[in-house]
């Protein structure tokens, strides 16, 4: 078996806010080396699921294990890189160069009182090289385009050398060409560096060849082990409603 170590092991996860079920009895496992796409209608609970997995929200019911440990006892957060949904909408007046932001990826690894080590600097340079932003490093983030900012945010996540990369619709407001490069890069990180990728996106048709499995989240979760088949399954259109048809057509165009 290629996928032996479960990174996330979710059992019967529910999230209820003021009597409203946001997520209901979700069970899923995510294994080392997987590339998983998560789709679902707006408000379906994709972001909430990720926030639960990262300990940013507390579940109402159910269990989450990360690397075999109950989430409460999990400490090795630096293994998980996270790019939140609105990451690229930075406050334009925030005083940060691209380098300042990517350096943040190393902060949780350093020891107190010590400045950046050679390894830290190498990891930062390497992340910027991968995201092709080396020449932007002294620019203020507030002056960058949406696509450039997206790459900076991912470079920050990569600088911590994560084993898992979680991206929540990072490509809102990014042009098509940048997006294609971006998808190619994600696939490369997954294949060549064995980074587990969890990618919330609306563009699943475009990346159908890259991904291993597809999760559809709309309060409940449906796990499709063969995403290409999944795109045409009826279950999906019930869950996904009208958007499933759009998605379907979208896929045939490509």
């Amino acid at each position: 078996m290629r996928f032996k170590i479960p990174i996330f092991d979710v059992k019967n996860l529910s999230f209820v806010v003021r009597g409203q079920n946001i997520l209901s009895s979700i069970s899923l496992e995510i294994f080392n080396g997987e590339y998983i796409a998560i789709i679902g209608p707006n408000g379906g609970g994709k972001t909430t699921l990720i926030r639960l997995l990262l300990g940013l929200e507390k579940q109402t019911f159910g269990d989450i294990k990360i690397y075999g440990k109950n989430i409460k006892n999990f400490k090795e957060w630096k293994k998980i890189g996270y790019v939140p949904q609105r990451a690229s909408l930075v406050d334009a007046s925030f005083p940060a160069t691209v380098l300042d932001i990517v350096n943040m990826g190393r902060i949780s690894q350093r020891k107190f009182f010590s400045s950046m080590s050679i390894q830290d600097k190498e990891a930062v340079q390497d992340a910027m090289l991968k995201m092709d932003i080396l020449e932007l490093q002294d620019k203020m983030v507030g002056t960058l385009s949406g696509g450039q900012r997206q790459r900076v945010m991912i470079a920050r996540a990569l600088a911590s050398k994560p084993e898992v990369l979680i991206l929540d619709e990072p490509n809102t407001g990014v042009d098509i060409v940048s997006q294609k490069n971006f998808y190619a890069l994600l696939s490369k990180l997954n294949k060549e560096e064995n980074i587990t990728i969890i990618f919330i996106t609306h563009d699943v048709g475009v990346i159908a060849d890259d991904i291993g499995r597809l999760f559809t989240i709309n309060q409940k979760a449906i796990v499709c082990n063969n995403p290409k088949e999944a795109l045409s399954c009826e279950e999906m259109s019930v869950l996904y409603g009208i958007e499933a048809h759009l998605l379907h057509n979208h896929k045939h165009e490509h």
Partner: protein
Amino acid sequence: MLEIFEYDFMQRAFFAGMIIALLASVSGTFVVLRRYSMISETLAHSALVGVAVGLVAGFNPLWMAVGVALLSAWLIEYLRSYFSLYSDAILAILLSGSLATAVIIVSLGGAFNNSLFSYLFGSILSVSNEDIITILVFGSIAMVLLLTFSKELYFIAYDEEVAQTSGIRVKLLNFLLVSVVAIIIALSIRVVGSLLIGALMVIPTIAALQYRVGFLKTVLLSIAFALLSVACGMILSFYFSLPSGATIVLCVISIFIVSLVINKK
């Protein structure tokens, strides 16, 4: 050189003022980036309760100010992080409640006089050797903590949740930041006064932000602006017999206006 330095009290005031400028501007960078300005105003008024207790009961007012400001900071952070109870309204209640309490304590103790007034608006004449020692001791602790955790605090200011998910102890560091800010504010009210310290904390950073430079340069600019305005303010207040806190604040506002104008595109 300048006759201003021929007086012992001016040397003390200048020394204390420079340390406070440094402390206020470095902590002020985080206060501005975290949008904590209202917290710093509130703490400045809480510190007055400590001053009032000190004046009436005969304890060192500065020590008492540090203590009460710390308690108030912890209360604010506790309400915020454990009850998600945080709003301008709550801060406003704490702020006016503290001011009222301080005034009542002082007038009950029969000491509603120049002493409290000098802590409201600051007074360079009143900086004693004991004050300098208090400022040095607590100021060093505050500065060491700030510098040690500056990268973490910067990350949290940038994105609290991402910082948390990368393993940074956000709650602990938030407590640390408000504690350090409380200490610095309490120390500053001697020189700048509790009504004006908020300005000295926040405006140098807001002025520095106009230059749109990276983090380190922003901090350095902010320190430079604070030192410059405290120096100018003290010199002006000495030669024109003006209240020091008010003069310092007008100087820092002038620097802000100049920064705004020269960076306007």
